[in-house]
């Protein structure tokens, strides 16, 4: 059965499902529930077909490419080329959009009377459709069209809740940054077109030798800026913590789980596949960007009190980890060690998949908490585990996966990235070894800090006593939202358990790329599904770890509850508060928790701590009524780079505005002067 659905017609059926969904939900926008039903029905069906299509593509390992030429312009052809790499990304897109759409059915109910659901459905399906187009397009212009449709539709989803002004600001910042990124991408395609004369990826790949090295470096810089802005690497990340929280939760899950991966996809497609004979310093730069983004991403996440901003910063950190894998792959390939390059690429692809899964799980569970609490500030949460036990469980699984704790999928992709970096440290000479050591240390510190951040997040949100009265009135999220999250948690465990099998598939995907045609495997499968690095440097097996932990836990629980002191009485009392009855002021707050880490890293973060004290009566300063301490970390990128840039453009524009001085004599003198200058210059 799988055989018949791989031809190109099935891809068009897949695309058409989404576009039908978009149009139909627009038509029925008058009645909210029908529009909601239609849009999520089509997106679910569409993502299911996407799953079948990509799985069959990967298993049968076939490439698909077909071209529809557009009659009116010579260089723009609607051409698709789906190799295993794009099939893998189609798999990620459809997996996450499937569960987000299921989640969305329940989540959209609270938008019913406020905004039109039909418009939401339209842009939501358009976004998923354009995501599929982005990862399969193989003509520069067609890719740019899909890329911009994706940005525009995600913009309209970010500003969907438009009565809140900072959503608008966030959306504005988002579209401006993506647009500037697209301008850089257009620039690089123009340079390529200048030397190769065509926008087709296949022609570019074959004619790559025509481009001189200096131009190739420019193209590299432009593409890094362009796709880096979309992927959210450090200097260009300022839109990500603003835009993702503004969007409805299942859209921000889709955006941070999948959309920023399109930037990574294009980096892989360009650097690994198309512009291939590349100099070494490209890989080194990506490695450095990866380590900076991962380290700073997690540090900024620690200072955050808004749950969705915290998760958005973690997306930046995980993109950094993916880039570590990619950077090491590029370095290895330019030092002609193809097996290690394949290992690095496998690590980054595996982490892309894992990050998509656990990040969207985290966003969805955070979304259902916000949906109940109507505020994103975690200082007002607390004790939610008693009211929303299943959401708490999903958030726990998500945070354990993201901080790479073993039984879950996060650990195994980070393990692979570690192996790639260790091979770098072991086999390369001194100068490269230094860079790999920096990368490995940043990965190690990021792991530790991510653990701290998610202890803070989970502890402050779900554990201990409620910090605001709203908590007592909330109830568990509706069924469809829990199903969405449940499946994602299951996926996170499954991909952890079968990490051996998935790394085999990833290796097959990697070998499909032209540069890895003849490289032999560096990792091999052992009979119990583990991943073994060559000459037994290292090996890990997920099922064994899982089985060992489960057996010992049940043994310990059995022994210590039923064998020793079976009839032990447990009394429920207040927490020991040295005689005071503990209210919410005694609990630790998010600021308190992160204060020590922030002060340790105060060189990088430059925090500013203000404390306001309110006294009972003004003159006697001895009886403070309340004391509020706020730690604020300055956004240095905004302060030192983006704000001055905006001011310069503003000043120049104010200067040019007084061309329009209102005085007619001045206007006529402009014409006269330009006439004289033109005449004198020409004659």
């Amino acid at each position, binding site marked *: 059965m799988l055989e018949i659905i791989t031809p190109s017609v099935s891809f068009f059926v897949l695309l058409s499902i989404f576009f039908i969904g978009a149009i139909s939900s627009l038509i029925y926008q008058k009645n909210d529930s029908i529009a909601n039903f239609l849009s999520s029905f089509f997106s679910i069906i569409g993502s299911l077909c996407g799953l079948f299509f990509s799985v069959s593509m990967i298993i049968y390992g076939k490439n698909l490419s077909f071209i529809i030429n557009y009659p*009116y312009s010579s260089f723009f052809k609607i051409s698709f080329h789906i190799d295993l790499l794009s099939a893998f990304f189609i798999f990620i897109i459809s997996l996450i959009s499937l569960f987000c759409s299921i989640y969305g059915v329940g989540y959209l109910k609270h938008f019913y009377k406020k905004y039109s659901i039909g418009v939401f459905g339209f842009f939501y399906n358009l976004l998923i459709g354009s995501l599929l187009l982005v990862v399969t397009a193989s003509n520069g212009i067609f890719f740019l069209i899909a890329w911009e449709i994706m940005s525009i539709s995600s913009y309209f989803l970010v500003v969907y809740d438009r009565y809140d002004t900072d959503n608008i600001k966030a959306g504005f910042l988002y579209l401006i940054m993506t*647009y500037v990124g697209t301008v850089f991408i257009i620039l690089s395609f123009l340079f390529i077109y200048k030397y190769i004369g065509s926008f087709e990826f296949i022609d570019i790949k074959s004619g790559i030798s025509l481009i001189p090295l200096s131009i190739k470096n420019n193209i590299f810089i432009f593409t890094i800026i362009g796709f880096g802005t979309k992927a959210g690497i450090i200097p260009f990340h300022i839109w990500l913590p603003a835009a993702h929280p503004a969007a409805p939760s299942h859209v921000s899950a889709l955006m941070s789980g999948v959309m920023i991966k399109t930037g990574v996809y294009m980096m892989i497609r360009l650097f690994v596949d198309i512009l291939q004979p590349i100099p070494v310093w490209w890989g080194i730069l990506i490695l450095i960007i990866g380590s900076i983004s991962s380290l700073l991403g997690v540090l900024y996440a620690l200072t955050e009190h808004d749950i969705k901003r915290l998760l958005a910063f973690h997306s930046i950190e995980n993109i950094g980890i993916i880039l570590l894998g990619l950077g090491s792959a590029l370095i290895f390939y330019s030092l002609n060690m193809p097996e290690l390059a394949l290992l690095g690429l496998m690590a980054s692809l595996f982490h892309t998949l894992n990050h998509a899964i656990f990040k969207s799980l985290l966003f969805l569970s955070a979304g259902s908490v916000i949906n109940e609490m109507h505020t994103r500030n975690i200082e007002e949460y607390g004790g939610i585990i008693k009211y929303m036990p299943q959401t708490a469980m999903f958030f726990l699984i998500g945070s354990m996966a993201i901080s790479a704790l073993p039984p879950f999928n996060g650990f195994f992709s980070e393990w692979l990235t570690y192996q790639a970096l260790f091979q770098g440290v072991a086999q390369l000479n001194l100068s490269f070894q230094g860079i790999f050591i920096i990368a490995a240390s940043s990965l190690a510190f990021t792991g530790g800090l991510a653990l701290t951040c998610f202890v803070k997040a989970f502890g402050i949100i779900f554990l201990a006593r409620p910090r605001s009265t709203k908590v007592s009135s909330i109830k568990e999220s509706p069924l469809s939202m829990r199903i969405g999250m449940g499946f994602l948690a299951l996926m996170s465990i499954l991909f952890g358990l079968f990490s051996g099998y998935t790394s085999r598939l990833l290796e097959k995907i990697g070998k499909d790329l032209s540069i890895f045609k003849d490289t032999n495997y560096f990792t091999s499968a052992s009979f119990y599904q583990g991943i073994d690095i060559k000459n037994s440097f290292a090996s890990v097996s997920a099922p064994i770890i899982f089985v060992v932990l489960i057996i010992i836990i049940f043994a310990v629980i059995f022994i210590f509850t039923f064998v020793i002191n079976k009839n032990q009485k447990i009394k429920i009392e207040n927490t020991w508060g040295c005689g005071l009855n503990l209210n919410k002021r005694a609990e630790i707050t998010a600021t308190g928790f992160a204060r020590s880490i922030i002060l340790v890293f105060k060189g990088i973060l430059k925090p500013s701590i203000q404390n306001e004290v309110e006294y009972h009566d003004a003159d006697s300063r001895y009886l403070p009524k309340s004391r509020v301490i706020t730690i604020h970390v300055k956004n240095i990128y905004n302060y030192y780079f983006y704000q001055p840039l905006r001011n310069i453009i503003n000043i120049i524009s104010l200067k*040019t505005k007084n061309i329009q001085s209102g005085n007619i004599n001045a206007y006529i003198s402009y014409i006269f002067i330009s006439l004289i200058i033109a005449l004198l210059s020409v004659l």
Partner: protein
Amino acid sequence: MELLFIIASFIGTALIIILIKNRLVIELLSIGASFVAFISSVFIALKVSVFGIYTPLVFLSVDSLGSIIMLIIGLICLATTIYSVEYLRQETSKNIIGFTRVKQYFILLNLFLMSMFLAASANNPIFAWIFIEATTLSTAFLISFYNKPSSLEAAWKYLIINSIGLLLGFLGTLLYFTTTTNLGGNDFVSWQFLQDNAHNFDPMVAKIAFIFVLIGYGTKVGLVPMHTWKPDAYSKAPAPIGALLSGALLPVAFAVILKLKVITDIAVGPLFSHNLLIFFGVLSIAVAALIMFNAKNYKRLLAYSSIENAGVMAFGFGLGGLGVFAATLHMIYHSFVKVVLFLSSGNLLLRYNSDKIKNVKGALSVVPVTSVLFISGFLIVTGTPPFGIFLTKMQILSVGINTHPVASIIALFFMAIVFIGFFKHVTSMFFEEKQVDIEISDKHIWLIIPPLIFLVLVFGLSFYIPPFLYTLISDVAVKY
């Protein structure tokens, strides 16, 4: 023969309206006239796509570029007349203007459309100059329609600057006649005649002539150093007139420059005119982008966007070859999108009766359909991909990167600033919470249908170009 229909219908309606008192008859007559004009321009376009040239009379001939422009004018005149009927009814209901003003409006409108059609189809350069001068005269009073000091100031500046520009253009066109005088006969001198014996044109005189023409008709088109009248005129004129000025008048003026450019290219070689056009094009994109960054009035914003697009067209035509094809396509898309933008800004003005950007808040909930029109118009005009203008801009840039890399990079950079500036104003106008006192109403059908038709038209044209139009455009690409 259809051309005569057009002219006759416009002159007829203009004269009859003077005599009639009943308002409904006036409106029906003008709509009828513009409908006749539209139908006959379509016929002319079909004829030209078949025969290549259409000359009903000795001094009226329409080539491919002329027919495209007549098609544009025909479409836009129909839409604007229908729109202005409803627009003026709204204005009279808010008793801003009386009946005499309405009558005066329709007379001048018909004269303006007639002179534009004649200018597009004139066979002799001086003949074309006379009718472009006639368009300036007929629109002078249309701009000062609201009889407020500010609209009077705008009209005065429009009149003075345009007359100076056209006089310089007049001198320039006359200099082209040095090739013909030594032949003695001062019989009727057509474009083709000038083009045939352009080879014995003294190159230095040709250069001076082209500069005079570019500066002269450049004021009419609105390239940068000569653009100063445009923001004032477009912001003070009623919305349909603004649409006509930027949608229809701009291509007409551009056509004259292009026809004269062909003659200079034969005499002096293409490089001279290309460099000038590219210089003025990039300059217009740059200055328009920078001024647009903090405009305060959304109609002036549209004016600067027309200047920027005029710059893009000049840049396209300056590149030659594939660039000309893209620039003509860009001209068509831009004219139609500008109509959508101006007419929806007219609706905004009717609802908010202030054209300051800061007074318009939360328009998406107040006038939902108009805001959707305006936002999609904005997305089209700034060249976001799925629509046609992105393709034409990319084509111009990709042709430009080969021959003039620095200029195209500067152009791309400023196009980004245009998007950012325009987008900043659109978000501040459309997305916030609406003011309390404005009630939601978008029920005047006739205010919505014309811009909607044009939006659908642009959307359709981005994907499918009818064959006859395609032949016309490729013929233009060959000749110019």
